[in-house]
């Protein structure tokens, strides 16, 4: 019972902090002090208190998209274990739900972008769906590899695959982790794929899709993106480290620290890499597919 409450609390409260840590890391790399790590929380509160400005072109799809972005990300978060605790929801085949929930969020985010009738937002939507078709097979190859390692059909079981397997099955796990990391960078619109801080609409992917969202709707979009980063971060951490080795509350605390460490890692990658040319992004994503695919091949004997 307490584990479920703790899971819900961490899932609800921690995500904005990860974004703050990434921003802070990038600022330190750039030699600036940068905003504090709690800044995303202040931004969210500010946005939630503002009014909404809606373009006359938009319909109800535009309002539904941020709502679904948050709801789907949070539901996906309920499937991923935190620390050594079992997740609140786990069943055979829940990894399909995990991937398809994000797809549902993507469907509405991209549709909402087209709803505004803006050419820039249409461009962003086209890029979002145009890259996602390469991240999905990478993710499913990773799931297959983890299923093969653990013999489990549910995400909670798959993510325990690293227990004791690190030494015997290092190569496939490294390959899987590399693939999942690229998926994370692409899905959370991070640096080599997308620049979350750019100022030129022509070069954006995720940010340009939400140009017209404002006030609480923009707050939901930002929060949904933070939860998505959190969930994929947790997924990656489970692949990278035997997270259930330390059990109970200390395990959860250690897990949260691990999440923050991965966020620092994302910040480092973002600071040290330039954004790829858009036409070269698919090459990176194919590398993710191949990485996870080879992991599965290595494990399939």
């Amino acid at each position, binding site marked *: 019972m307490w584990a479920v409450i703790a899971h819900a609390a961490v899932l609800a409260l921690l995500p904005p902090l990860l974004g703050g840590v990434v921003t802070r890391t990038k600022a330190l790399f750039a030699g600036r002090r940068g905003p504090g790590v709690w800044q995303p929380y202040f931004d969210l509160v500010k946005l939630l208190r503002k*009014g909404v*400005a*809606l*373009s*006359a072109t*938009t*319909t109800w*799809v535009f*309002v539904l998209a*941020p*709502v679904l972005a948050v*709801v789907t990300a*949070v*539901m996906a978060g309920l499937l991923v274990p935190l620390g050594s605790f079992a997740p609140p929801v786990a069943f055979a*085949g*829940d990894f*399909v*739900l995990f991937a*398809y*929930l994000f*797809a549902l969020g*993507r*469907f509405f985010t991209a*549709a909402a972008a*087209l*709803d*505004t*009738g*803006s*050419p*820039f937002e*249409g*461009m962003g*939507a*086209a890029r979002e*769906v*145009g890259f*996602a078709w*390469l*991240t*999905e*097979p990478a993710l*499913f190859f990773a*799931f*297959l590899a983890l*299923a*093969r390692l653990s013999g489990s*059909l549910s995400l909670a079981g798959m993510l325990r695959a690293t227990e004791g397997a690190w030494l015997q099955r290092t190569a496939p796990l490294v390959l899987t982790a590399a693939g999942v990391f690229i998926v994370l960078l692409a899905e959370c619109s991070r640096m080599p794929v997308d620049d979350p801080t750019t100022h030129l609409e022509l070069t954006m992917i995720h940010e340009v899709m939400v140009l017209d969202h*404002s*006030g*609480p709707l923009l707050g*939901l979009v930002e929060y949904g993106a933070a939860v998505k980063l959190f969930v994929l971060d947790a997924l990656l951490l489970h692949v990278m480290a035997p997270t259930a080795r330390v059990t109970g509350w200390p395990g959860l605390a250690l897990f949260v620290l691990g999440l923050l460490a991965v966020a620092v890692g994302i910040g480092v990658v973002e600071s040290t890499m330039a954004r790829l040319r858009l036409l070269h992004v698919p*090459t990176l994503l194919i*590398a993710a597919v*191949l990485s996870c*695919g*080879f992991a599965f*091949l290595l*494990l*399939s004997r």
Partner: protein
Amino acid sequence: MSISSGEPWQSAALLLLVGAGCLLAISGVPGLLLSWRSIWGSRIATALVVAGSLLGLAGGSLAVGGHGGAVIGFPSPMPGFRAGLGADALSGFFSLPVFLVGGLGALYGASYWRPRSHPRNGRRLRLCYGLLLASLTFITLARDGMAFLVAWEVMALTNFLLVTTDDEDPAVGRAGWLYLLYSHVTILCLFALFLLERQLSGDFALGVIPAAAPQSLRTAIFVLALVAFGIKAGAMPLHSWLPAAHASAPSHVSALMSGVVIKMGIYGLVRMCGLLASPPLAWGITLLAMGSLSAFFGVVFALGQHDLKRLLAYHSIENIGIILLGLGLALVGRSAGRPDWVMLGLAGCLLHVWNHALFKSLLFFGAGSVAHATGTRDLERTGGLARRMPATAGLFLLGSIAICGLPPLNGFVSELFVYLGLVRAAVTPGSAWAALPAPVLAATGALAVACFVKVFGITFLGTARSSAARDAHESPPLMLAPMAVLAVVCAVLGVAPGLAAPALERAAAAWAGQPPGGLSLAGLAPLSWISTTAAALLAAAALATAAVLPACRRGRRRAPALPTWDCGYAAASPRLQYTASSFAQLITSHFAWVLRPKVHAPRIEQLFPAPSHFDSHAEDLVLDSLLLPASRGATQVSARMRALPQGQLQRYILYILAVLVPLLIWAMAGESAGR
């Protein structure tokens, strides 16, 4: 005439189905006796189709509930032949969509194809529509080769007449002839198939072909079934007739063709695979490969289209691919002696047959409403229709979510079954290769999302791109009601898949030739979790929407005429919006090698170029390259070999993977066959 049956209500089911078939067959006849001007021809036909469909729904439900099934034997019209009709759970399962979509299509068609606006072909359309529905009913009931062939030929011919309803248009005529050509390849294959079967079993009755029969003959039967039924189902690479035929027919006929008629190919394949005892592993692998190919390239071709109905037709090929994946998994499971793979694969295959019938006819009805309202099927000339036709937009969105396989609708459930079966294979030692379609299915799903964001976003959202779209009008209630019924069934199956579980179990048992109750679907698939998560998703979305709606209302009231943020360019016009082609371009450019887009782009030579014109469209690869002479093909292949080395490391690794995967399949298949 003799009826043999275990239980009385099973013969009742069969009699209801036969009665429904007869009623449907004559539904267009009264209209022939009336003048084309009379509205009564249409009304009587619609009433008869609806009555027949209701009878059939009752009979089909009874048949799905039973097992074994009743058989009627008719006295032979020709010496040596016996016509038998029977209804087991599998027949019932495949006949239910015929009646649901057929009945709703007749209601939709009554408004869509009014006698007044189509004086020349209305009567022919209604006659053929009823006959087509009757032939579909009898195909599912046929218990011997002769009855099957007669019903099949009636289906092929009436369907041809329906495709060419609008035969003043030369493109429609071409589509019709192509369809007829392919249909006759099918029927020739079926003749050969039933003759071979008679060689083995002694008569034309559709009975189990024992494993003791010569393997070469059994393989020949399987290959003939695969080609014949693969053509009918539109599986790649036998699909070339499908897009043009589905785009040319009137929309309610397209809905019936795409939702139900092509499923007769699946029915034939499922039935024949069920009759061939102990299949070799290669058959299942063939179906898995064909399913992956159809699913992936079906959606790739769909992305290249900007004709709404042609695009939906290519999505039928994609969904047939998903259905074949399920069937292939079931066959592999049968060869490997894994009843759980059989159950999950067949459940995914069969449930997707229902699901696709539901959401694809919903989408074709929606496409018909769009065409009706704007007079065009070209996506580039629509836009902003959600304001003018809100009900159609909402229903179309529901269908789009369902066809993308997204929760909480029905498409998700059947895809989940297939995924579960594939991952069960993945975790079994020695059969990891069988899981390789899973990532392909994942990519297909993501591409389907891209495609339906394009369709829904370009058609219904944004602002109108033409005056026709600006002046569009909402469809009459009689066209919306059938769509609403289909949408409700989609939602119910998505939230409560447990309702379909008994039917799936009985049909799977009938297929495997086992008594029902052997394997429970609920033990293999998380049916109650699907319901819980779907309900939670809906509830959470409703609550969160209710929370933000007041703020949005206030914003709308305070500033009702705000423009979209134009990034500083203050002369935005609807023509600046992204179009269907530009939206898909990022993806289709990866597949230029298979889509072969024909692009007519202007050459800009002066500083101030004159007004110009750009267009691009993708043609069907298989159709066009079949016509190429063999020598030219060979030259092209060798020319393309030169393009392979391009100095990109990722490409080389991809080639290595592309070689390794078939080698792995080969090695492991040999291994499990040896065991």
